[in-house]
């Protein structure tokens, strides 16, 4: 008994400090920095060798990134894009979840939707973007519809697997013990569905922002995609790279900073699900 108190009071704090030191050491001594240096050096020397507007030096790209950030243009355009992404993504989640639950729980619905889901999974985002731009012009309906069409199949696939993976024995048991419907939904179905829903969120969000950028390239007067297109029209390679890296960086932060940890946290109690994710 005394041994456990010593264990819990003293050793963890020292190991935590050691762990932090170890983590920092690993982080700063990681070969990833070597990669960055190698790439930047190669890029820089090639750009200086080429002396062309089409091959900007990394310094120039960095400068234009800073200019975009500092002037606040980036945040304006990001906000414009994010509004479209979030509206389209929420609707895609809604539609995808409904269809996914239908497909996971009834064979008829599974067959009914399967052809459409496979077709929508296979068609490139470009098609949705072009067709929606032609139908709806530069209104907000264009990105929203394109995002729904492009990303709902990913939600459907994940939610369907989640519904199929529900533990039927637990539900049968709660039925035979006459547990209330709300309680079953809250304590059996939702916790077991949640990891799959989060995987759906992550997958479809990644598709949603890419399709939104595409739509903005073909038909929009604001947004990150429009700015990329603008740089493309001016043959400004540094602009394309700067906007793409900044936008990609924000999306990486959202994905690996919020969505992946949330998934890990909620899938903690299910080792087999964690592995699939």
């Amino acid at each position, binding site marked *: 008994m005394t041994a456990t108190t010593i264990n819990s009071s003293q050793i963890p704090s020292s190991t935590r400090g050691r762990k932090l030191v170890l983590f920092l050491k690993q982080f700063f001594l*990681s*070969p*990833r920095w*070597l*990669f*960055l240096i190698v*790439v930047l050096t190669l890029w820089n020397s090639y750009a200086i060798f080429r002396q062309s507007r*089409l*091959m900007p030096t990394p310094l120039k790209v960095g400068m234009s990134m800073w200019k975009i950030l500092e002037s606040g243009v980036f945040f304006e355009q990001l906000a414009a894009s994010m509004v479209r992404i979030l509206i389209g993504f929420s609707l895609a989640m809604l539609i995808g979840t409904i269809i996914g639950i239908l497909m996971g729980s009834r064979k*008829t*619905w599974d*067959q*009914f*939707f*399967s*052809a*459409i889901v*496979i*077709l929508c999974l*296979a*068609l*490139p*985002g*470009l*098609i949705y973007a*072009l*067709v929606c731009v*032609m*139908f709806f012009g530069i209104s907000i309906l264009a990105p929203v519809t394109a995002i729904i069409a492009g990303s709902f199949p990913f939600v459907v696939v994940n939610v369907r697997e989640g519904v199929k993976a529900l533990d039927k024995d637990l539900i049968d048991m709660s039925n035979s013990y006459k547990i209330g419907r709300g309680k079953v939904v809250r304590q059996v179905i939702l916790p077991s569905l949640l990891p799959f829903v989060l995987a759906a969120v992550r997958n479809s969000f*990644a598709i949603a*922002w*890419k399709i939104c*950028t*595409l739509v903005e*390239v*073909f038909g929009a007067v604001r947004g990150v*995609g429009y700015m*990329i297109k603008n740089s*493309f029209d001016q*043959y400004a*390679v540094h602009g*394309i*790279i700067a906007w*793409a890296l900044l936008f*990609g960086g924000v*999306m*990486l932060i959202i*994905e*690996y900073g919020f969505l992946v940890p949330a998934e890990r946290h909620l899938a903690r109690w299910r080792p087999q699900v964690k592995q*699939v994710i």
Partner: protein
Amino acid sequence: MSVALSVSTNQSSTTVGKRVAKYLKGLVNHKGWLAIVLVLIFWQTISLLLGGHGLVPSPIRTAAVMWDVLVSGEFFVQLGDSMARLLIGFTLAMTMGLIVGVMSGSRWFWNEFFKDVIVLGLSLPGLVYALLSVVIFGTNLMAPVMAILFASYPFIAVNIREGVKAMDKDILDMTQAYKVGKWKVIKNVIMPSLLPHFLAAIRTGFTIAWKVSVLTEVFGATSGIGYMIRFNFQMFAVRGILAWSLLFGFVMLVIEYGILVPAERRFARWRPNISEVVK
């Protein structure tokens, strides 16, 4: 023994016939047709309500354009151009993905070295590669090839890396202890264990590759499926966009579900855990 065998083969031939009949029956009774028919009816109604021409072409008109494009042989000409670019780019991407994947799967150093660029490569949209390579390389062959290479190698590298990591070290140790020849180890241990991951890499990489290839052709090419889609976009011909993209999507679906997925299933057969992951 021989009697039993002949009886069982006899039985199996009838079950094959029965299975084919059952499969066909299942295909005809499949509820997916209902969904397709409903979508077509919905589409037809909308196009009739909006006048039946211009922005919302009826499915019949779209099918007519598809038929024209197929019969005149134009589809196959453009498909040939696109496929040539696609195959060159994809071969390069496979080579690069294999090298990066094997390196980062087998050594800690290379794993850390390539980790960030793979994550970045996985998350940047194909659009960025397409636009950059069109600006830098113009409308020649280099543009689609480079865009495909950089967009799809991360997906290949990730799959190969996981495959190398999942290799059974105990078996490798055992072959060393028994002094089995290097070639034999590669042929009998490493290849069979890597093959399912390799096929998964081909499938995911190929899906990305053809999408990026179309995108590159949209922005800078004078032939190919993407160019035709772009051409129809500029003519405001929705029926053309739909016809070309549905035909191309159909060809790619046939390649994916007709060749790549069955190949994966076949080679993953002996490993139930992997065949479940691949699906």
